[in-house]
């Protein structure tokens, strides 16, 4: 098989995971927080899945799939005998229903946009159809999905939570409250939900994958301040603090060997960056943008966050396929930056604004950036605002000259280089209300990106990744961003938690892949 189960794994037991924020919903078509993301993953399954602890795709509810020559038609063979938590068997009808549901505007799914490549999506989006014409039920165990354009990311999309298969009767029964009464095919099912306090998942005994899950139950306690959660972990009351190690406690934990031992470090698909609004002077001048790139002391910034990150050179994080390993990025060189500014006619510097979300450590990072830019004569005023305000300013033309992405930063939805381009660097995002906050729009690169994504042949994967690498190198040349760092993930666990370290820094299941971890006592 694709994954070798841990031979030491034992069945039984329960763990307690804490979160600060309440869980908004467990509806897979709607949930898009990083905290309910992995919960939904454990409650639901899609046609595709990832090998635990990796970014490698594997079939999920689909037993196998076939891709047509032109890469435009996918035929999925479903597993038989997979049961929903309500006891009914999952069939191809459910797959179709689920995809129709998520793309139906009435569902208001934030993920609907991912399905743009499926034939008939446009008709769904504008309300002229109520069913995706590209999705056909061949027989109870076979679904055929036709695309309107070749798209190499399609299988990743099928592994997204949004593609999870849900039973129609449960959705109909609960209506808008389905998110509070989730019914899926996942390894766990929701046993109890006390709003504002805790959620209890219990093992799905009928789970279609053999041997997993190991845990009998998972209790998510919400509304818990991260510092207190860590305190409770230290007291042995909690197994995994879902929000990680709070910055204020990081040094304390890492300097105590007994605790540091229980910390698992791993990369994640994250980049922290500064956007430079290319439509606003003086950032419309590429020289100025480059100068800014050279002025930022990334080492110092990583030091400020206690070294919990690696300085970044490019938009893609290192663990992402397509990352350009031999690219050095802009070197830190204030003198050269100054000279460059002078060349651009801004020898006296200029004044600008930096928007930042107001949660620690982002304002601190912004202040470090501010100081760095001051050194080259750029006078930065910090606007530290609530997340929604920053997002609004970013999506308004001429709203924000600079934005530090922290707290709202791009963590990939799926491990594919394309995920870092479209909405945040492509022309599609450079619109009112879009997420391309540097308003960078290079049609040439858009074309290249489309080209790369149309390479669906698995054999051509290298060529595709190279294309993406080229795209991002071009981006760096135009420097609409200052990539600052790639944050690492530090997950802490209680002593009794077992399982491969990779499960604790699973790139798609944050913080932990619940289906495969176990407790040793």
């Amino acid at each position, binding site marked *: 098989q694709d994954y070798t189960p841990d031979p030491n794994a034992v069945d039984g037991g329960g763990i307690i995971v804490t979160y600060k924020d309440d869980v908004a919903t467990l509806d897979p078509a*709607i949930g898009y927080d990083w905290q309910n993301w992995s919960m939904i993953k454990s409650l639901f399954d899609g046609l595709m899945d990832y090998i635990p602890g990796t970014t490698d795709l594997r079939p999920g509810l689909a037993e196998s799939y076939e891709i047509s020559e032109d890469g435009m038609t996918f035929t999925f063979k479903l597993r038989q005998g997979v049961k929903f938590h309500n006891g009914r068997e999952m069939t191809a009808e459910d797959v179709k229903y689920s995809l129709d549901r998520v793309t139906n505007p009435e569902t*208001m799914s934030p993920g*609907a946009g991912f399905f743009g490549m499926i034939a008939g999506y446009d008709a769904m989006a504008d309300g002229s159809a109520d069913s995706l014409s590209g999705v056909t039920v061949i027989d109870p165990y076979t679904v055929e999905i036709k695309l309107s354009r070749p798209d190499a990311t399609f299988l990743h999309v099928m592994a997204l939570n949004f593609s999870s298969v849900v039973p129609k009767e449960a959705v109909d029964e609960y209506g808008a*409250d389905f998110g509070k009464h989730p019914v899926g095919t996942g390894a766990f099912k929701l046993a109890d939900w006390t709003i504002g306090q805790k959620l209890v998942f219990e093992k799905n005994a009928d789970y279609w994958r053999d041997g997993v899950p190991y845990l009998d139950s998972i209790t998510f306690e919400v509304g818990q301040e991260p510092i207190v959660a860590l305190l409770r972990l230290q007291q042995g009351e909690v197994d995994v603090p879902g929000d990680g190690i709070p910055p204020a406690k990081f040094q304390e934990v890492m300097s105590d060997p007994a605790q540091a031992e229980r910390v698992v470090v791993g990369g994640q698909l994250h980049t922290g960056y500064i956007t430079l609004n290319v439509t606003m002077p003086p950032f419309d001048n590429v020289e100025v943008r480059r100068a800014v790139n050279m002025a930022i002391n990334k080492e110092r910034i990583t030091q400020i966050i206690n070294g919990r990150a690696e300085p970044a050179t490019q938009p893609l994080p290192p663990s992402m396929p397509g990352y350009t390993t031999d690219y050095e990025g802009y070197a830190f060189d204030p003198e050269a930056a100054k000279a460059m500014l002078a060349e651009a006619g801004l020898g006296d510097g200029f004044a600008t604004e930096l928007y930042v979300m107001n949660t620690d450590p982002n304002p601190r990072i912004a202040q470090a950036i501010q100081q760095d830019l001051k050194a080259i004569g750029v006078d930065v005023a910090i606007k530290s605002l609530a997340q929604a305000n920053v997002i609004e300013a970013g999506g308004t033309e001429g709203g924000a000259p600079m934005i530090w992405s922290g707290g709202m930063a791009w963590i990939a939805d799926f491990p594919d280089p394309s995920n870092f381009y479209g*909405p945040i660097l492509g022309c599609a995002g450079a619109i009112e209300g879009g997420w391309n906050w540097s308003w960078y729009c290079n049609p040439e690169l858009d074309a290249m990106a489309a080209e790369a994504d149309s390479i669906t042949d698995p054999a051509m994967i290298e060529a595709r990744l190279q294309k993406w690498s080229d795209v991002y190198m071009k981006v760096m040349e135009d420097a609409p961003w200052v990539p600052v760092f790639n944050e690492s993930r530090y997950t802490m666990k209680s002593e009794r938690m077992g399982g491969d370290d990779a499960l604790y820094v699973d790139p798609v299941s944050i913080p932990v892949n619940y289906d495969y971890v176990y407790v040793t006592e």
Partner: protein
Amino acid sequence: MLAYLIRRLVQTALILVGVSFVTFLLLYVLPADPVRQIAGRSATAQTVENIRHQLGLDQPFIVQYANYFSGLVQGDFGRSYLQKTEVGALIASRLPATLLLMLGAIFCELLIGLTLGSIAAIKRGKWIDQLLMVFSFAAVSAPQFVVGLLALYIFAVKLGWFPIGGYGTFAHLVLPSLTLGIMGSGWYSRMMRSSMVDVLRADFIRTARAKGLTRWRVLGRHALPNAILPIIAMIGIDIGLFMSGIVVVESVFGWPGIGQLAWQAIQRVDIPIIMGVTMVSATAIVLGNLLADLITPFIDPRIKLR
């Protein structure tokens, strides 16, 4: 009295309408788009427009408000944008915890504040008075987050007297109430001292002493009720002040109250929840003040409700 009550209730209703309107307006002009929060970062322009239409957010302000208001008068708070759940149900499930916490906090405030304030007034000018003054100011100056964590650290982690956060039993209630109430107790004790000093000078206290009443009776029956008048007015105010402190206290102690709900909603522009919580807390504040006003004539019969 009855006429007064009716008049006040009508006024209360008007105030609530006012609050609802202004809040709704603020949310409308707020430069943060709820739709973008719902649509998420991968949404296409089309999706965004769809959602906006679905929620009726593309309608003129007055229409939106009218819709909301007509729901409100029928007791319908609408559905959360992000959670999709009925706001009424969400609030109802969390309100008891918040009320419990507030009651606990008011109890702590009164107990600590009135006691310390009275002691300070009696021992006016003595060292204990000065010590209590420092306490009051420390209580007011201390950030609640730090107070809460310290309390948790000392009484729950080190001494193990109370659970480390959570909700359910009386033991869970103690530390959060204390944390939330400590600031108020600083206020109360200063207020109490000041008004008590005044009262203790009054001739009728002399009369009470001349009767040979015990110290406790002089204080409890004569001085306290006379001194407590400004304190009563504060209880209504407190409910308002708590609303800001409660966010911190609830998150430190993992208390499933309304504060956290509100905070998350504000950050994510979940308008129906913000409106719902605002309306509920506004109602509580206005009714709290009404209650305080109704109580005062019972305490001081010279004051008449007009």
